[in-house]
């Protein structure tokens, strides 16, 4: 099995006629994802790479049975696209768009909760259950089907980690880039719970970074609820205070949100923290043989 996306996932691409949308729709399709439709207002009736385009998510969902959407629209339009997907009954919405205003996310969050819509992102690379479904912009070829669940605030760092895991024969159940913004959808706790409940996930890799206290809360959550082995990595030990390190959420404010605090939080609950990316597979193996 896997979490969130699998062989039955039917994907609708919002913004499919744009540069990124069309490119990745094709990529996902090539990977084997069921990309059933796209949305681009005013372009309903066209096709992109054989994928039918609709004017609204509602039309797309009705016609195709799509249950998951991925959003490639400009940041200023992204939350409206999320709401449209949610209102149309889409179960899982993945937002790739970068630069979404934080207060827009604050505004949509209660609606998604009310409708029971799951959100990944924004400003994220999406997710993949290897050999089953790729809903995102991750390079499919580096993944290997297996039993490690991975979640990360970063994109390329995720690839780096996955590459290490795959090289060591540690395949993945599902890998999720949760995005680099301060306010995002599904986060460490929800995903830890999903991996805990997934019979096909044996161990978990959590990749955090500076800013906020999500890692500290995740550590507490692991202590209380997670019995599967977890290994962590925290990026940004050398980041200066007060500077946004690329991600809108990666900032040490008023001396809090540092890597040291996060590392200490994990180690205090018995979660080993790799100091270098290459240490992750080894730590994982050690944890699994405990």
């Amino acid at each position, binding site marked *: 099995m896997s979490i969130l996306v699998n062989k039955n996932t039917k994907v609708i691409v919002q913004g499919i006629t744009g540069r990124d949308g069309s490119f990745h729709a094709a990529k996902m399709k090539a990977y084997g994802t069921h990309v059933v439709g796209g949305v681009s207002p005013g372009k309903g009736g066209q096709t992109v790479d054989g994928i039918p385009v609709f004017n609204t998510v509602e039309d797309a969902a009705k016609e195709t049975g799509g249950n998951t959407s991925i959003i490639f629209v400009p*940041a*200023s339009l992204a939350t409206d696209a999320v709401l449209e997907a949610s209102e149309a009954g889409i179960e899982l919405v993945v937002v790739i768009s970068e630069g*979404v*205003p*934080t*207060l*827009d*996310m*604050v*505004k949509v*969050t*209660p609606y998604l909760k009310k409708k029971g819509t799951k959100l990944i992102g924004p400003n994220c*690379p999406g997710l993949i259950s290897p050999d089953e479904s790729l809903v995102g*912009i*991750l*390079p499919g*070829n*580096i993944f290997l089907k297996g039993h490690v669940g991975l979640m*990360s*605030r*970063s*994109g*390329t*760092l*995720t*690839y*780096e980690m996955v*590459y290490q895991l795959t090289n060591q024969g540690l395949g993945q159940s599902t890998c999720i880039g949760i995005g*680099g*913004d*301060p*306010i995002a959808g599904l986060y460490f706790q929800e995903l830890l719970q999903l991996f805990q409940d997934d019979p096909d996930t044996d161990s978990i890799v959590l*990749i955090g*970074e*500076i800013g*906020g*206290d*999500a890692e500290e*809360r995740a550590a507490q959550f692991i202590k209380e609820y997670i019995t599967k082995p977890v290994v962590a*990595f925290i*990026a*940004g*030990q*050398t*980041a*200066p205070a007060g*500077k*946004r*390190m*690329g*991600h*809108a*959420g*990666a900032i040490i404010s*008023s*001396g809090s949100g540092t890597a040291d605090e996060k590392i200490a939080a994990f180690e205090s609950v018995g979660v080993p923290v790799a*100091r*270098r*990316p*290459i240490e992750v597979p080894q730590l994982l193996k050690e944890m699994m043989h405990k």
Partner: protein
Amino acid sequence: MKIHEFQAKEIFSRYTIPVTREILCFTPAEVTSATETLGLPVVVKAQVLTGGRGKAGGVKLARTIDDATQAAHQILGMDIKGYMVEKVLVAQGVKFSAEFYVGLTIDRKTKSVIFMASKEGGVEIEEVAKNTPEAILKFPIDADLGMTPFMARKIAFALFNDFNLVKQATTLFQKLYTMFLETDASLAEINPLVLTDEGNLLALDGKMTFDDNALFRQKEIAALNEPTEDEQKEISAKEKGLTYIRLDGSIGCMVNGAGLAMATMDLIKYYGGSPANFLDIGGSSNPQKVIDAMNLLLSDKHVKVVMINIFGGITRCDDVARGLISALSQLKIDIPIVVRLAGTNSKEGLEIIKQSNLTVVETMSEAAQKAISLCKDCAKQAPYLSSISI
């Protein structure tokens, strides 16, 4: 994005949040004149985009006009944490009997705007947060309802006993929230909010920062930006699609992706080196970006060696390689460059740079170690080629 105290208080005024009477000055003569206009006493306050100006001597109370002028002479031109003071705010001295803290920010945990209030005003709120967190009350604001009268009143009752003050505060808190939303702020603080001897609430000092992601729809706010030289460089980089932050080390880094860029810096540190910058070239595959990035790195004279760490996803390694080759031919590069390419089209990329003088390594650990070793004896030797992989 940060703004000055005087700018924050101008925004407060627009929302009819009461602030002290005050005048912005650029010279001691202006301060003298401003003091005469406002009447004694006055407070002369350095306007710099960093905290801790009080401790640094950047805030002075003046009881005579001479004192004010002298304060201006002392403060203008002062260096506060690397920021030069170019302007001061002369504010009318106010007699008050109590100081409070109120602020709005965005809470990642509740995914909502949160109102913070404390009776411990007038001191560094970070200190209060660390030492007596229970002294800061936190009220998440429901995004659908906004700052309802009852919620504003509830917060006001938590700070004040006198109902007249509660009523003043209730209105003030609602205005503060409206301002926060309408300006796409990420922080809006009044510290201290004082109770004057006349029985009124007044913002003695104010601080606001804004969500960079929202500046596209906040033209007026965006216009207030006063970047430092370093920040100007960051902004120019951003315009080219690069996220650049200057640090004080000697190994220039070029990486795709923010997380990997941070991890790269961390790895350099781990092996005993020091990164000269954070540089994320982002997800696109435009070779021009690589040229721009290389230019940017080389513009920092502290950079003694360049480490390139690319894990191709959307970014294609062959595009990066092409950009590198162009950069090498266009720019005069006299420092070593270590390259690691992995992921999408890495084979093709490595093929492209095979003939160049770049130092190519297989893993990011190797890259960091190699960069450090090259940096240690970073004489004027030319970049050279080592091994090829992935």
